């Protein structure tokens, strides 16, 4: 068997393992542990999908959670209990009052809505570069929040939507997580991924070599937004209540920190970062006592600083958990793909 085949087997084993753990959790785990498992999976989806844009293409997007919000609201509206619709959404038209969609359809609809927003916003936004793009994407986050706050008839404004049916289970979340990782891995090891890498390394040179920048950046942006939208739908049906304040800076930076600590451009790193930076702070809260609330956040800050000192390119850099790592070559998994743009610091310990 070639090493690449070994990697494929490894992926499928891990995927099967994740699904098995999810099923086991649903069958008998303590509710608290089930929650932790479910949230972990949600963060994996968010971080891996963000990596497609921020890591593979090198675009620093801060708007990811805006897409999540779109998916959350759309899917929540789709599954909102019919009996409560007249009271909650009195002004919405008749067709809405009688249309309840099944959960999977609602999730896909949420993802599609987010992807649509990305497609529309992408055209003006992705022409920008560097810091301007980052701020532009932040504007997207703000705009989505303002729409959520002001479109009272649809979103109930700042009050948010409560009473969303709690349909999310660990199986749903980890099934989507497995799919996201698969999609990201396929992108990374394909010609498409190669072109994204070229754009990341030097978009001017890439354009001069005939790479259609807009098309490729848009594709990555839309795929990433789709999964963020699905994650939003899963989130809404996990907590049962969403409000504009949920999809804000705190969540944005939490996900970005997970991405960077894990390693920008590394899918394995995203999974590790998401799991680690969700479970570790939770573990730290057990150290808090009557007078020491806030200690967990302090400890987390210390951990982040230490990681940045000793592993400035994140825990995994651009590498993957891979048995085929030793190969040389132009692929994103090999040496050339490990180089970073001028904005990042050089990484001496890249493969």
């Amino acid at each position: 068997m070639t090493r690449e085949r070994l990697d494929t087997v490894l992926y499928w084993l891990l995927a099967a393992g994740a699904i098995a753990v999810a099923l086991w959790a649903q069958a008998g785990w303590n509710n608290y542990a089930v929650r932790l498992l479910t949230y972990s999976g949600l963060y994996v989806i968010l971080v891996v999908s963000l990596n497609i844009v921020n890591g593979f293409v090198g675009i620093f997007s801060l708007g990811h959670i805006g897409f999540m919000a779109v998916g959350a609201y759309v899917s929540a509206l789709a599954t909102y209990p019919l009996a409560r619709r007249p009271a909650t959404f009195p002004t919405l038209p008749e067709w809405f009052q009688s249309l309840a969609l099944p959960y999977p359809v609602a999730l896909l609809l949420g993802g599609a809505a987010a992807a649509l927003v990305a497609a529309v916003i992408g055209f003006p936004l992705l022409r920008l570069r560097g810091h301007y793009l980052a701020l532009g994407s932040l504007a997207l986050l703000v705009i989505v929040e303002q729409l959520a706050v002001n479109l009272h008839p649809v979103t109930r404004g700042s009050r948010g939507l409560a009473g969303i049916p709690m349909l999310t289970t660990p199986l749903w979340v980890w099934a989507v997580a497995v799919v996201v990782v698969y999609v990201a891995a396929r992108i990374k090891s394909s010609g498409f991924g190669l072109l994204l890498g070229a754009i990341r390394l030097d978009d001017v040179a890439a354009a001069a070599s005939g790479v259609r920048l807009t098309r490729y950046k848009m594709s990555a942006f839309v795929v990433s937004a789709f999964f963020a939208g699905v994650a939003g739908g899963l989130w809404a049906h996990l907590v049962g209540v969403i409000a504009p304040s949920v999809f804000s800076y705190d969540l944005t930076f939490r996900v970005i920190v997970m991405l960077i600590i894990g390693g920008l451009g590394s899918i394995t790193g995203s999974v590790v970062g998401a799991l680690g930076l969700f479970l570790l702070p939770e573990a730290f809260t057990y150290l808090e006592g009557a007078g020491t609330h806030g200690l967990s956040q302090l400890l987390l800050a210390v951990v982040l600083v230490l990681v940045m000192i000793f592993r400035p390119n994140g825990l995994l850099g651009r590498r993957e958990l891979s048995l085929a790592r030793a190969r040389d070559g132009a692929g994103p998994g090999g040496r050339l793909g490990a180089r970073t743009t001028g904005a990042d610091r050089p990484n001496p310990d890249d493969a």
Partner: protein
Amino acid sequence: MLRRALIFLLPMLIVPLAAAQIRIGSLYNVTGDMSSIDAPGNNGLRLAAKLINESGGLLGQQVEVVTVDGQTDQTQLTNAASRLVNVENVVAVAGINDSTFALAAGPVMQAAGVPFVIAGATLPTLPEQIGDYAFMVPFGDDAQSFAIVDFAIDQLGVETYYMLYDQAYDFTLAVREFANQRFAERLGAGALLLEDSYQSGDADFSSQIARLRALPTPPDAIFMSSVPSDAGNLVQQFREAGFDQPILSADGFDTPLIVEVAGDLSDGVYFSTHTSLSSDDPQVREFVAAYEAEYGHPPENAFAALGYDAMMLIADAIRRAGSADPAAIRDALADTQGLDLVTGTITYAPGSRVPTKSVTIIGVQGGEYLFQAEVTP
């Protein structure tokens, strides 16, 4: 990751060893944006538990309060709720001062069959939306709105009014709705001369002021449905524009900001709230003294008293139930009648988990927040 999983499973093994105590969960946002009202709430709750223990405990056992911080974050809060219920195995959970957070955390307690005593959120439909294990310590926004309107009509002789409300919050929208309803019930539809709105955080109210000034006859009172952060600015700008009428509001005006920002202009501001910490009522004075003795400073706001009352409410239910079983506690809570607490007397009408409770009206005079009346609407 397996090791991390074990770390979480570990507390589940240790906790049963400590079963000789009655464990109560304190669910508050001790850190983060809500900490200014939640930290005092947690302090009040823990103080009550301490005093209970000093006078012999409950059913012969000591009360242990487990506080898990929500960090003013929805994920953390719901995880904290789950931890209290599923890992720490508490028999009741008390806390939370915000309705949106209450709605997020409530289902966790409801699903686990653990009573959830909401300390400070005032949305009257909370217990209905969450389920039969949710109880409110404070009155609902309907009660406090009715109370301030009744006070204005009966004590201040108000016959016409102007309504200004914040569009951004469930709370302010609810207060507006209930206040309008009460005014219409008692004075008829013609009492409302003009209604206007703003968005929380707006710095300038000159357009609303201009529209008010354009009225042919000025209203007897100005009703402002707002949250604490806007209260000071609203009062200052309207007073500076020359409006001397009484200004009315709900507990969103229970903030030192009114006097801090509007200074002398704050005379004639009246609002409904949970308790007046400067009241002469012996229970209030006792609470304030105990809080100061324990924490070195007087209670910061009424939410400290609400946290204290939440614990006392649970303790009373446990005593009457004669058991620390969550289902028994729930039933005993539902039967609470005439329980005298710092923030008022709590009675749950059959089938309702929002208390019929008296509302305190406070008036600002000479820079002081003075008790005016206690109204039971």
